[in-house]
């Protein structure tokens, strides 16, 4: 039976919210000055962004969500005080094949390693499989991002692709790992509820 009462955007300690164009640019601008965080998240060259640049990015994100219909973007907030601590998104959704790419990041350093990313991924998967009806999701992770690798493995993701030495940072070469999770695998594990 359809569990219509389930709240898709509420977890134990965190919730999903929309972008707040007034207060979030300042906060995310601060995260972009954290090179460690940015290099865990991004493959393209990292650079600090001003609040105005982040604001422009948000506008582009919402324009894409509205017009392309292949991007689903959430901000992660603490339930306690609605504080903006990270983001979770499904992008490049390929509707004809039922595939989408996931990204999750906790930008506020003090909220890392508390299981909040895990709660956010749980919601994101339920949304991808229960709301968008995707057949599969993909997460692309640098091989040095041990935290992300552990998180995706915990949720049953399978290592599918390893682009050898695709990253070159600080004079070292790293693989880029593609993790995949099928709707059917997720359903079997979490009984369709997450």
């Amino acid at each position, binding site marked *: 039976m359809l569990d219509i009462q389930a709240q898709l955007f509420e977890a134990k300690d965190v919730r999903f919210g929309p972008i707040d164009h007034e207060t979030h640019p300042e906060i995310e601008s601060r995260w972009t000055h954290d090179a460690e965080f940015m290099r865990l998240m991004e493959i393209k060259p990292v650079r600090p962004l001003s609040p105005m640049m982040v604001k422009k990015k948000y506008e582009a994100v919402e324009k894409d969500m509205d017009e392309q219909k292949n991007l689903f973007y959430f901000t992660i907030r603490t339930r306690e005080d609605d504080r903006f601590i990270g983001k979770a998104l499904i992008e490049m959704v390929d509707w004809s094949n039922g595939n989408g790419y996931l990204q999750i990041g906790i930008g506020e350093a003090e909220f890392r390693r508390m299981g909040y990313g895990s709660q956010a991924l749980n919601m994101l998967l339920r949304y991808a499989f229960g709301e968008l009806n995707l*057949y599969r999701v993909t997460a692309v992770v640098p091989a040095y991002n041990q935290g992300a690798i552990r998180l995706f493995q915990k949720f049953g993701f399978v290592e599918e692709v390893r682009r050898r030495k695709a990253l070159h940072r600080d004079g070292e070469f790293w693989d880029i790992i593609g993790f995949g999770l099928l709707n059917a695998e997720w359903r079997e594990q979490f009984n369709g509820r997450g």
Partner: protein
Amino acid sequence: MKDIYCGTLVRLASFSPEVMARNFLKWDRDTEMQRLSDVVPTQLWSEKKIKEYVEGWKESETSYRFAICPLEEEKFIGMVSLWVSSWNHGEAWLGIYIGEREYWGKGYGTDAMRLIVQYGFTELNLRRISLGLHAFNERALKSYLKVGFQMEGCERGGFLRDGVRCDDYVMGLLREDWIAAQSAR
């Protein structure tokens, strides 16, 4: 200096939007070819729209697209391209198709592959080249292996057509492996 655009069966060439649009108009009708070479739903576009689309290509500094021409004849039989996904890491994605079916399975595609890979490593100075293909595309797989690409993974059920789920492969070729193979030849 050697002609890096010239192989043993084909050469890589520039193209005008008008001429290429007429080729695409014809090739777009071949849904087998479209489904073999892409993941997006096959569609039919007007000559005007295709021409505008092709004109847009020349503004890009991350994509390098060439028409494939047989040496013996002044005509286009397909396209081959590199999209640089990250200059900082030296990686690009390769895409190729032969639109003219009578040139399938005769080595023309493989010859074009050798040229574009050489272009990627010696002109763009890439560190690695990546590509994706549907698992059922055996002709492509054979060609990519011949050029030196190695299997790097399989995205399970990444492609759905006619109700059938198919896997997609990802392959990669590293600069050092390509150079070692060149000097061994």
